[in-house]
């Protein structure tokens, strides 16, 4: 059974004045447990809308989203926060760390909100800290550490609840190239350990580490590439070529849908 199943999701924004704006036309795809999926698209392609719907931050106009077989659309409004906390882990472009907490407390935040005991929290923390190599900055504050370290903190915070799915929104967007490499290696690493990851990005480099890349354009899934046995470099080349082809198709006034 797929861990995430998206069926004919449609989202139309209706402004108070003017015509309705379609953000997603009809998006369907599924993610198997243990998969590492990247969704690529330009600004305005609808990928942020899609991510918000998957994160249950926004509701689709039509369609269905199943997480682990359960529809996230039927979760009641007041249970949504708990639902997100228990099932999803988030990594954001701008880290979203609270500057009033030190690194340790930022990582603990979702567990504290879930009402876990301190003993259980520490037990869960140890392996994650070791895996992410942030043991020596736990007592520091977000303004005292580098961007890469902040993003690893955010990853630790996402993983500590043991989520079914990690949603990453442009996680390398605010990082330098060295930190980007580190983070992508880390994602690959935790994916190997069995963590399902869904990443939204427009960075070819970031997408080239994924097991599967979905291309979204004008509110639809446009194309997808499976890694197969390609190396990261080959994957990078393939993605680049695909993007060029998509862009060319548009410039030639070609039909959407390859």
């Amino acid at each position, binding site marked *: 059974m797929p861990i995430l199943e998206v069926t004919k999701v449609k989202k139309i924004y209706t402004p108070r004045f003017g015509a309705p704006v379609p953000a997603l036309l009809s998006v369907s795809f599924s993610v198997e447990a243990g998969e590492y999926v990247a969704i690529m698209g330009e600004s305005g392609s609808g990928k942020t809308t899609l991510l918000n719907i998957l994160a249950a931050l926004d509701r689709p106009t039509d369609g269905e989203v199943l997480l682990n077989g359960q529809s996230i659309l039927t979760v009641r409004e*007041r249970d*949504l*926060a*708990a639902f*997100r*906390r228990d099932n999803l882990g*988030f990594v*954001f472009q701008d880290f*979203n*760390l*609270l*500057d*009033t*907490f*030190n690194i340790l*407390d930022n990582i*603990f*935040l*979702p567990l*504290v*909100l*879930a*009402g876990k*005991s*301190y003993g259980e*929290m520490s037990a869960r923390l140890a392996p994650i800290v070791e895996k992410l190599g942030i043991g020596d900055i736990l007592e520091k*504050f*977000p*303004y005292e550490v580098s961007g890469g370290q902040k993003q690893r903190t955010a990853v630790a*915070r996402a993983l500590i609840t043991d989520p079914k799915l990690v949603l990453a929104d442009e996680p390398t967007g605010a990082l330098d190239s060295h930190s980007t490499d580190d983070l992508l290696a880390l994602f690959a690493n935790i994916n190997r350990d069995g963590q399902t990851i869904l990443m939204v990005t427009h960075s070819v480099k970031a997408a080239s580490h994924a097991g599967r890349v979905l291309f979204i354009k004008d509110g639809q899934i446009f194309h997808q590439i499976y890694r197969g046995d390609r190396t990261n470099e080959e994957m990078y080349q393939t993605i680049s070529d695909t993007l060029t082809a998509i862009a060319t198709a548009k410039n030639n006034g070609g039909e959407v849908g390859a």
Partner: protein
Amino acid sequence: MRNGLYPRLAAVNLKKNRQTWLPYLFTCIGTIMMFYIMLTLLSDPALTSMSGGTLLSTTLSFGSIIIAIFSVILVFYADSFIIKQRKREFGLYNILGMNKRHIGRVLLWETLYTALIAFVSGIALGILFSKLMQLLLLRILRFDIRFGLYVSPSAIGITALLFAGIFFLTLLNSLRIIHLSKPVELLHGTQEGEREPKSKWILAVFGVLFLGAGYTMAIMTKSAAAAISLFFIAVICVIIGTYLLFTAFSIVFLKRLRANKGYYYKTKHFATVSGMLYRMKKNAGGLASICILSTMVLVTVSTTVCLYMGVDDMLDNMYPSDINVSCYDAETADQRQAAKQTVLDAANGQNRTVRDEQAYQLLDFVTVRSDNSFTASGSAVGNDIMTVASEFKVITAADYNTLLGGNVTLQDGEGLLYTPNYTKNAFSGDSLTLCGRPYRVTMLTSFPLEASVSNFGCETYFLVVRDAGELAALREAQTAGNGGSAPVYIISFNLDGTDEEKIDCSNAVASALSDDQQGGAQATDSRVACRAQQYQEFVSVYGGLFFLGLFLGFLFLMATVLIIYYKQVTEGYDDRERFRIMQNVGMTKSEVKSTIHSQVLIVFFLPLAACIVHLGFAFPMIRRILQMFSLTNVGLFAGCTLCAIAVFAVLYTLVYVLTAKTYYRIVS
């Protein structure tokens, strides 16, 4: 750039920043209005020409100085708050190609607009309300209401000068802030990484010590005079203590909470404790100021209200009868008889009916007590007269019998003793030595002259001795230490008629006595006090203070409201980002709202709670000081304080409700 640009830009800026600018404008209008009203009342002929007018104008000019000082502080505070909030905006201008001179010109226009609007509306409202205030003051002073509007051009002029100066200074200050900052900093403005506050143990300990010292002084002081001399020291201790407690102690305390893992890592406490750490770091100064201002408001209002309402009580204590005559050198019975005759003749000559007449000799002196021995040694008492001294008021058995209509006879060495028992360690026993003379005493449970106790707040003892001979002997005995004053012959009585008639009568008595003295034969030096006359003076002094108390109370309240409002606005902008992140990480909107709500509540009501505790400790001390003003009605003072607290708490909560709305509009 074209010339019209700056004024237009300035106008647009003010409109855009109205959320912070309008409260600033209102503050300026308010202070201008209050300053003008105070100056107008000060020069209002309707007030200055009446009896007690000089005392009143002293009080009012004191008030206007306080308002002037306070206006400077308040307007300055508000202006630098706004400038700091707008750093980002100025940074943007800078990037867009305006240099600091251009920004300065925009600021100049903004200041001009603000000053003009504030001045015109402030004076207009001032003229409007000065009539209302004049009526209120006349009412408080229990004078007849007069008609006609009085506008004082000199008051307008002085107000204009003062506030032109203040606005000029604020402009300079803004320019300094802009000039000192770099464009990049301007652009980032308020968003610098906030460092975690450090625990300052020593300061925290000092805070506790200072506050403890202030509180101890307030509670332990037993006499009114000591209370007065220690009051300001105690106030300063408490002010320092409050600042240290809010700034250092709160941080140390919160960090202790955070170190307690079992407590800290709970959903309820987690965000609140860490959030409070930062809030306290940012706001501690402001909160301490609010706390101290509130305490000032409440102390000022409650004491002045109490003094005003207690005028009748005070008069009863100080002047038990309508007319009180003290004759100082009436050594012989003949002299006393003659003086009494003169007084009564003069009173009757005014066609007044004399009632409740009392006449007695009173020997009044100060002693130092050790156990049950009292020695007259004025020099040893020195400056501590009120703390270590016991005052003796001695009369003869014959006078006691006349006063009471009784028939008491005392043997040699016997005495009757009465003390109003203000303190627990007042003397109580059956034998004492007074200036080396032993007495076997019987304690009385009441005394006819009870009302005339010392207003110095020291122990007062009323002693009845056998006869005039014993009184003379006692006088001799205490002369060595005190320089020996003769017994005073006191004649007091009540009159019928109106206050004016009583005052006329008192004047007639005084001039009759002075004629007697000029005449020679039975001359005595004397003093005549008329209750009705004192009443007018009391009302003009305490009424003036009462008015000033209300007026300043209002000013302080305005300052409190302004600080609270600006605090809420800054908090709102800081919290907006935090709000968003917490929701992203899995807090529900209502959870976020409730944690933030509880933090805002703590921050908001902490100063009020601290202020009420301060008042609680100040109460016994102020009560003793009021005793010095012959105001011994504790119930009245307690009532005034409680009412003041209640009214203030309601206003404070109202301000909270209003500013909380702005706050939630910002964060969501």
